[in-house]
């Protein structure tokens, strides 16, 4: 870890914001809309309500056990072996999320912009960028996110402004889509769309003061939720319930509809550039955090050499499934279902054990 205490609130907030909020621009909305139809835009709110207390408990525990990141925290509470095991689960979740997402993102780029290019080549470019980016170290990742964030968010804002004339607010009805109970269960099962919040916890010690980390993470997660809700709302009001579940990449569909005046009618490539910035950053985070979890579990202090083998593994495993619909709609959904109870209950369990041990009293 090459932290010299250069990172502040803004850097951590940018990382969390890009990491979580990019879910409005991939096929997560499609995944959510399969059962919930046009009520799916409420799902993130429910998920957030379910999972955010757990996140806060985790932050509380990290605050109590000073100078520890999340794996060290688990070790301190549950003992060495069980702690390592939990760390390993964290690693597996982070890594498999990366693999499934990577395939999904690559298919997006391929289908929409490079239909004739082989998937493996684009995969290669993506992961090479993620590898070299991650190789620069966590502080540089932080700076880059901080500087890139305004540009990325400005382009998102531009998308909203330009698509606004196509929004038909009446399409929001029926508000709960195919039913409140379905939305509620979906919201709880898919609570792990916010799993990235927990992956970021490995960087708990990277900021100048840990208070900055907590502040940045909490603020950014709330803004990210707002962004997700806003964009999901736009999707259902632009596409309506019938088409939304059939559209694989709503964000790209939206930017293809955008016109900038009469003269510039196809400006999706401009937004694609900023989307790519965010996507590259997302995989840099994933790769770096995976390596970090792995290093924390297996006591490898200098974990950055692990980036290359992990990057290579991502390409190998990512290319295995037959197509991206399979990875996204089947594997990734199963992963979400698996991760949700883990992230919802683990913090409370840890808190309970810590409370029993009496660590929290001081």
């Amino acid at each position, binding site marked *: 870890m090459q932290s010299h205490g250069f990172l502040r609130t803004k850097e951590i907030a940018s990382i969390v914001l890009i990491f979580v909020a990019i879910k409005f621009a991939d096929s997560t909305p499609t995944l959510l809309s399969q059962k919930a139809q046009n009520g799916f835009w409420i799902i993130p709110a429910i998920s957030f309500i379910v999972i955010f207390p757990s996140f806060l408990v985790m932050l509380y525990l990290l605050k109590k056990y000073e100078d520890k990141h999340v794996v060290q925290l688990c070790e301190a509470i549950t003992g060495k072996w069980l702690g390592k095991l939990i760390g390993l689960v964290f690693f597996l979740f982070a890594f498999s999320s990366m693999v499934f997402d990577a395939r999904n993102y690559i298919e997006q780029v391929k289908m929409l912009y490079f239909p004739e*290019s082989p998937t493996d080549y684009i995969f290669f470019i993506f992961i090479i960028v993620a590898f*070299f*980016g991650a190789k*620069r170290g966590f*502080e540089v990742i932080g700076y880059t996110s*901080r500087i890139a964030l305004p540009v990325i968010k400005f382009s998102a804002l531009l998308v909203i402004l330009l698509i606004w004339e196509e929004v038909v607010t009446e399409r929001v009805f029926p508000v709960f889509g195919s039913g409140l109970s379905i939305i509620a269960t979906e919201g709880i099962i898919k609570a792990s769309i916010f799993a990235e919040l927990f992956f970021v916890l490995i960087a708990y010690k990277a900021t100048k003061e840990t208070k900055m980390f907590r502040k940045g993470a909490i603020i950014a997660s709330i803004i990210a939720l707002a962004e997700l809700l806003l964009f999901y709302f736009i999707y259902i009001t632009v596409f309506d319930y019938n088409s939304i579940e059939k559209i694989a990449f709503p964000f790209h569909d939206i930017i293809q509809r955008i016109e900038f005046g009469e003269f510039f009618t*196809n400006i999706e*490539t401009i937004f694609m550039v900023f989307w790519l910035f965010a996507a590259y950053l997302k995989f840099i985070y994933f790769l770096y955090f995976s390596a970090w979890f792995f290093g924390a579990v297996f006591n490898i202090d200098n974990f950055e050499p692990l980036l290359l083998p992990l990057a290579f593994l991502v390409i190998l495993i990512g290319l295995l499934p037959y197509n991206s619909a399979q990875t996204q709609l089947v594997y990734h959904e199963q992963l979400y279902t698996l991760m949700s109870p883990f992230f919802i209950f683990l913090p409370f369990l840890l808190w309970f054990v810590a409370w029993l041990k009496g660590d929290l009293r001081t």
Partner: protein
Amino acid sequence: MRIFSRQQNNNSTVSEKKIIGSLSSNIREMKQLFSYDINKDFSLRTLTTRFNKREACIFYYGSIVDGERINLHIIKPLLENEGDEVSNIVSIENIEKIKEYEKVVQNINSGKAILFIDGDTDAYAMDVANFQHRTIPTSENESVVKGPQDAFTESLDNNISLIRKQIHNNQLINEGVQIGIRSHDEVNLLYLKDLVNQELLDNIRKRIKELEVDNVRNIELLEQYIEERPYSLIPTILYSEKPDKAASYIEDGYIVLLMESSSACLIVPVTFWSFFHSPEDRYLRFFYGNFTRTIRFICLILSLLVSAAFVAITNYHSEMLPPDLLLAITGSRERVPFPLIMEILLMEIAFELIREAGLRIPNPLGPTIGIVGALILGQAAVEANIISPIIVIIVALSGLSSFALADLSINYMVRLMRFIFIMCAGFWGMLSLTAAFFLFFMYAASIKSFGVPFFSPLSPHYISTKDTVFRQFIKKEKFRPGYIRPKDLQKKR
């Protein structure tokens, strides 16, 4: 060890010897040290002093001293005046007693006259240096419309005087650090003692002292000796010929390096913004200055990316172009045999060619060749169907924009990166262009100049004047840049 032994061989005869009481043996020693019989401008003048009636001898390099002053202020007083010791007789402002031959050699090389007196074990070094140099010129490479026009010249004293003229402060220190093993050059560090960060100062001193080189003639070479990443495309030391720029940096707590024979200074440490800014931005009023900054920022982006983006869009994302424009481009390319990326590269190289040749060409020929170059490469190449007219526009745009980036180092960086971006755009269009730009950006963010991150104070954040892409209203600038950790952060109380 090899260097150590060589150093000993060089100086063993000189360093140990001391000046003795006998004038004739001192003269013999000096003649041998400076090869008097073949060294034509090494001069000596013997005389008998009036005050103690002894033989004396003055040594100096005729080419680097002021003969008039030797005559008027050393020889004449020694011949005519009475007194008890040399310092009370000669009327020269700077006189120093020395005992070793090593010092004698050093002093003569730096333009001093050395006086030996029979029976005296001290020699007297008197400053009569008169190195030739230009007068103070107007700044040509960093020209401004509004603001001081003078530039550094190849004389250390003049340069320091130009800086002292702007900073009337007794805390402004001019510290000399010796450099070089064979010839003893001196690097002068200028800084404000009550502001500069001590760690940074020690770091720079250490880097200069640790250099094991025969000699470093000027600042331009020194820059390459002390920088951290010699193979990086991104510069980490600022080079400037403007005293007002140097003074403004000193006032913020930076360190300025000067050497005798350079008409410029080095400023450390730097950030991206130091290369991006021009002193004129601050001399202009708030809106005018920021307007200039906006234009310069657009120029930076255009110069880096316009050719590459053109390649990417026309090759891979042609649906982006409005149909009329697309037809115009394809129409103009109809009879051109090369692929588009080839055209762009050809033209970019041609542009660099004109630029380089234009620099080296003797002055009287310059304009003629410039016109021929532009005509042949522009007009004729289009008519011969080697390139399409739109390429000329694109390349001219990117070439012209690069001139707005006044700093030479950043200019080279942009011009080199442009080629890399064009290549990348040729592979996978916007995907690989974005990738290349992104990685370049991350690399730049990871650069540190003497411990200062390249994009601070933007990220990592520091207390500062917030002078990044845009500057603030000048009365609102309350702090010095926090990233160089000055001793006093606050500008105004």
